[in-house]
């Protein structure tokens, strides 16, 4: 070594050292870039799973139309339809609490919200075989019971909760759902594809049967969502996703106040009995509870999710007209009524509650007017 070094020209040695250093530095720069890029990607892909520990993006803009779990907070907390809704404080006993406490997540607004996204205009619907499937998806979305009858077990349509045929911002729009899946969900405890997520909608919100993944209904819905998401940034927080976050209410939600809000603002369309209204065979106003509504496993049965949806979107065309407190109260009122059984029912309301509803803000298994919700066969 020494011999060879000594025999080498000093300048050449320095040059070689310099070359090595440059190579090393270049390599490091590339390495750092790759790591940074990877971390950035990871971060933007799973913002909800680190919501409480890192300066995660604003939950409101983060939240997709469909659920993401805030895993670090409480893996059992599932946000089915609108993960934007406040997270239920884990550890707070819920079983006898008629006014579930929900932790607002507005404080997480650390990352600037991404620009709003507008789905393509209907006039731009493509022709041909692809356009035909997009249109079919749209029609299934708007008249689900008619166009996907074999998978629907109630009188709801997708468009009842995802307004403007899944286009409207702050109404859990489908363009947002499309760009946020696959995603980890606390509800299933695994990464779900968009198809799996749609199957969940049919199982719970539509109180029906999950269409097989290769069914025409699934293809049409996903094609429609794909078209709606034309030009949307994949995996990025987009303004208008999910339902806007609600602050924890000043007063604990109250059923009696909620009943008054309901009578004044909701009963005109949904009926005093909550069963909606029909015109001939067509369901015009959807039933909010009872045997023809969503079941106890649907995201909308959670008080926070319902309150967020209601505040942003109800009465139809007058979103934001109810106060946040009114939205919480009327959400509690709506979801304190009997509805179809949770399809994951174990045979015991108590066990089903502790298994699937212990940590969500659910009235399932709680006693209302002497009746245990979920116990009616």
């Amino acid at each position, binding site marked *: 070594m020494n011999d060879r070094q000594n025999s080498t020209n000093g300048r050449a040695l320095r040059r070689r050292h310099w070359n090595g250093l440059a190579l090393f530095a270049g390599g490091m720069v590339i390495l750092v870039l790759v790591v940074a890029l990877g971390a950035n990607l990871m971060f933007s892909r799973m913002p909800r799973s680190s919501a409480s520990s890192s300066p995660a993006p604003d939950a409101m803009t983060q939240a997709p139309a469909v659920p993401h779990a805030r895993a670090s907070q409480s893996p059992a907390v599932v946000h089915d339809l609108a993960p934007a809704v406040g997270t239920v404080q884990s550890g707070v006993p819920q079983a006898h609490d008629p006014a579930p406490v929900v932790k607002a997540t507005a404080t997480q607004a650390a990352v600037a919200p991404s620009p709003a996204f507008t789905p393509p205009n209907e006039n731009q619907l493509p022709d041909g075989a692809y356009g035909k499937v997009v249109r079919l998806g749209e029609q299934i979305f708007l008249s689900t019971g008619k166009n996907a009858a074999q998978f629907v077990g109630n009188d709801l349509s997708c468009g009842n909760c995802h307004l*403007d045929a899944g286009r409207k911002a702050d109404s859990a729009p489908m363009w947002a759902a499309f760009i946020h899946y696959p995603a980890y969900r606390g509800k299933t405890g695994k990464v779900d594809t968009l198809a799996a997520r749609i199957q969940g909608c049919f199982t719970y919100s539509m109180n029906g049967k999950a269409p097989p993944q290769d069914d025409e209904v699934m293809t049409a819905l996903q094609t429609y969502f794909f078209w709606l998401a034309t030009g949307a940034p994949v995996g990025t927080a987009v303004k208008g996703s999910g339902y806007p976050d609600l602050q924890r209410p000043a007063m604990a939600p109250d059923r009696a106040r909620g009943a008054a809000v309901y009578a004044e603002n909701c009963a005109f369309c949904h009926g005093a009995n909550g069963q909606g209204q029909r015109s001939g065979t067509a369901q015009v106003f959807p039933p909010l509870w009872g045997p023809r509504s969503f079941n106890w496993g649907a995201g909308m049965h959670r008080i926070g999710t319902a309150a967020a949806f209601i505040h942003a979107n109800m009465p139809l065309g007058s979103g934001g007209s109810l106060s946040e407190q009114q939205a919480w109260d009327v959400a509690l009122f709506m979801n304190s009524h009997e509805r179809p059984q949770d399809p994951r029912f174990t045979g015991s309301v108590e066990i089903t509650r502790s298994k699937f509803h212990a940590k969500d803000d659910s009235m399932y298994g709680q006693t209302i007017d002497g009746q245990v919700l979920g116990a009616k066969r």
Partner: protein
Amino acid sequence: MYPHADVAASLRLRRARIALCCALFSVLIGSAAVAQPAAKGVGQQIAMEGLSGKVAACSGCHGLKGEGSAAFPYLRGTGQDYLMAQLDAFANGTRKNSLMQPIAQGLTKAQRSAVASYYSRLAPPARMVVAPAADPARPGEWLARRGRWTEDLPGCAQCHGADGGGVGSHVPPLAGLPQAYIAEQLQAWKSGSRPAGPLALMAGVATKLSEADILAASTYYAHMGTDPALAPPTIEGRAGK
């Protein structure tokens, strides 16, 4: 063979007799049921004859069968609560109309209720079957069925039904109403000369409509085929233009 045929024939005859008896019986029952409400109630009397020297007959403008005429809306098959609310609003002056105000004021609350009940029980006009998907190339149809959600504007059909037939007792039908009448009502909500309606829904909707929107939507519903005998006067001009 022959005895069997005889039995079969007599069976057929007996069945035919039974069927005939049933048919006769149901015709009798049916005509009795029809005859029942045909006995003139207060509502029908006011509708057809008015109150002598005081209140004009509804049928003068709204047609002998409540089918409407010219720019006067049809009333038949329209929800009782809706009709009652309108008569009350005419009576108390919150819905302004120089023709209807004196008429409504000339009726007692009970008489208004009887008239509203009478018209609500008449069969509504036949409804047209609507194409499953709205056509985005037709502004009137698109607005009527899908609305304009960038402005939080729901489609008319989201409350009035896809066929424009109205819903329940409070939400009136739109299909086949005269274009001028629909347009006038939307203008009235805009200007406040008609009560904002339940939940102020219609006032909220109307303020989001441009003149072109009003023409497009009213033309869509006026042209929405109902019973051909009730076809409204044709309105020239293209929706949305």
